[in-house]
């Protein structure tokens, strides 16, 4: 049987993974076991260890090959079934009506033969346990098969015509948006990772940076240069490198970005230059949107848009960015797209919000300044016992005004509102985020009050929801106002448990 079977005979039959993976998988497996192979062959020469290394590699390749050969899947009796394994057999079945997302990714290894990995996700939401047990990965199938699976699984119907289903373009990336890339500081993580890797490697090989020729000359030169000049040059250099990397990252991740709506009520995101990614979100499962404005991006007038939807993968590594609806773009455009995605006339995240009481400002300032002061005190203590140089605590102490500014900005950004179907909450300064969630998605209300909040007459209201982060908070709202908001957010739910006192 072949995966190239005509698409309209697909139901009920067993399909295999694409055989072309047999050419790719072994190579990748060998590359993956290179550390073991090199380690055992070089270090264990002559005492039999190299056979161990070869054995492990052969086993890895064998497991990979048998995975490709034995994996089979079919869609029948209202569920998608999947079996794999030669010695250890695995079988998994997911009812079709539990499938929420179909995520199609083509990494470079796949693109070599026009293949795609298909991830089928269910609505079960557990960010703690991960999604390992309730998702199914088909790595890999041909791109036509991936398209067929997406249509069959999400719309529960076979492709009858060969033409692609009609779709309406909601948003496309604009080349000019690349200017927002440096403000995402995404390159900083790359610089940090590279620096850490080089440092670790040098340390492992016992290379002290000051003993390397060119570096040594550089250090000698630096010793004769003014400190401020070094700081300025280093800062400018870092800024340039980070900006370049961020632009590169933006282009790699968001090139050909396209957000479309298909007639069956599915949002479809396609993006990527080398690794292409395609994510489908059932509109029925859309619970809201989140507008993210990290401080640098906010200063540049940009923002990012994320979907809050059931079953959408949101996490680290490969799961990161599953819900992305718009890459860093002008904030006005973000709100337009948000309104369009939610099928509203305006983006609920733009409405004026109810401010939180002044007592929340005190708490924000106490936290921001207190944190910095604690750090300074700890560094001072370490400097006092001659463990650290004393300029460190002085620098940290110098950050206090900035901490105060951040605290004030955090207070200024706090806000909540109820607009039509939506509960809107905004918070944060360095990473400001505004969420608008559909009230009918709430699975209850959680009200919490810490010891200090109690003294200030404040509460934190959490709106639990089976999507996104699992719950969204309205932080430090006045008790009465917060409860009034919660009562309106989930009509009737809170009413029997509320006590009403006439205004004093």
């Amino acid at each position: 049987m072949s995966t190239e079977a005509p698409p309209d005979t697909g139901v009920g039959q067993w399909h295999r993974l694409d055989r072309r993976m047999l050419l790719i998988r072994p190579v990748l497996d060998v590359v993956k076991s290179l550390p073991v192979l090199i380690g055992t062959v070089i270090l264990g020469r002559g005492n039999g260890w190299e056979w161990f290394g070869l054995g492990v590699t052969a086993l890895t390749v064998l497991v990979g090959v048998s995975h490709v050969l034995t994996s089979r899947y079919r869609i029948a009796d209202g569920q998608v079934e999947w079996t794999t394994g030669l010695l250890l057999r695995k079988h998994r079945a997911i009812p079709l009506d539990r499938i929420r997302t179909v995520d199609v990714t083509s990494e470079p290894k796949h693109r070599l033969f026009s293949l795609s990995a298909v991830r089928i996700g269910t609505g079960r939401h557990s960010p703690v346990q991960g999604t390992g047990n309730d998702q199914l990965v088909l790595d890999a199938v041909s791109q036509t098969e991936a398209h067929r699976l997406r249509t069959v699984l999400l719309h529960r119907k076979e492709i009858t015509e060969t033409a692609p289903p009609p779709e309406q373009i909601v948003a496309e990336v604009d080349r000019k948006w690349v200017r927002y890339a440096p403000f995402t500081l995404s390159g900083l993580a790359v610089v940090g990772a590279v620096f850490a890797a080089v440092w670790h490697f040098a340390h492992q090989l016992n290379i002290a940076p000051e003993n390397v020729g060119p570096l040594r000359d550089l250090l000698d030169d630096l010793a004769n240069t003014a400190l401020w000049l070094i700081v300025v040059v280093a800062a400018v250099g870092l800024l340039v490198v980070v900006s370049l990397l961020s632009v590169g990252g933006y282009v790699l991740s968001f090139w050909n970005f396209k957000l479309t709506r298909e007639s069956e009520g599915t949002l479809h995101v396609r993006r990527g230059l080398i690794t292409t990614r395609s994510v489908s979100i059932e509109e029925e499962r859309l619970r809201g949107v989140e507008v993210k404005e990290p401080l640098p991006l906010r200063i540049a007038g940009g923002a990012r848009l994320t979907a809050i939807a059931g079953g959408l993968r949101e996490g680290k590594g490969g799961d990161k960015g599953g819900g992305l609806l718009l890459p860093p773009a002008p904030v006005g455009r973000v709100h337009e797209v948000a309104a369009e995605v939610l099928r509203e006339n305006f983006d609920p995240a733009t409405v004026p919000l109810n401010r939180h009481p002044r007592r929340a400002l005190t708490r924000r300032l106490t936290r921001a300044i207190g944190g910095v002061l604690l750090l300074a005190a700890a560094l001072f203590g370490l400097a006092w016992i001659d463990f650290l140089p004393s300029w460190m605590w002085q620098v940290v102490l110098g950050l206090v005004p900035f901490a105060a500014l951040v605290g004030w900005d955090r207070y200024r950004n706090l806000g909540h509102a109820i607009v039509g179907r939506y509960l809107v909450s905004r918070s944060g300064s360095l990473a400001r985020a505004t969420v608008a969630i559909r009230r009918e998605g709430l699975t209850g209300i959680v009200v919490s009050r810490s010891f200090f909040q109690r003294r200030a007459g404040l509460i934190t209201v959490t709106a639990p929801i089976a999507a996104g982060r699992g719950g969204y908070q309205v932080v430090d709202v006045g008790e009465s106002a917060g409860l009034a908001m919660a009562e309106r957010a989930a009509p009737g739910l809170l009413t029997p448990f509320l006590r009403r006192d006439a205004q004093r």
Partner: protein
Amino acid sequence: MSWAVGTEVVQGGGVTEETLSLRPPANRVSRRAIGYWTVWAAVGWVILVAAQAVFVFTSDDAPTWLTVTLTISCVLAPLHLLVMPQWRYRIHRWEVTGEAVYTQEGWLKQDWRIAPISRIQTVDIERDPVEQLFRLAKITVTTASAAGPVKISGLDHAQALALAAELTRTTQATAGDAT
């Protein structure tokens, strides 16, 4: 639209003429829960104090600060054991109506959780050995959200069984997949 006026918030066009607060849920947990919380807290303190005491009395050069923390622990332990369980008993409350499960818990940080019956996915009963000793049980009601589980601990076992059965019945009666 709505705007803040002083510290009192005007909601959605209508002025709130009243202050709202949550009333405590109707039912207390079993009185035996006091004993249960005391036992668990005591276990923690015994381990902490014993570890420090062993080090102070057997080591030749135990640091002075360890003696200080040991003394502090010995003073704090009985206070905590006397105050915490009573305090908790006064705060931990629960209520189940036809529409919702409502709990109040915590002691320094308090939580009020309300879950609509229609959104309940599972009802679990759990009993650790100490709970079995005190004939107590803990009910966990989960919803589809990770932030929403409602726990009632320190319930009388028989009462917990009846409650879980009732909740399961009402949950089954409601349609939909609760997400």
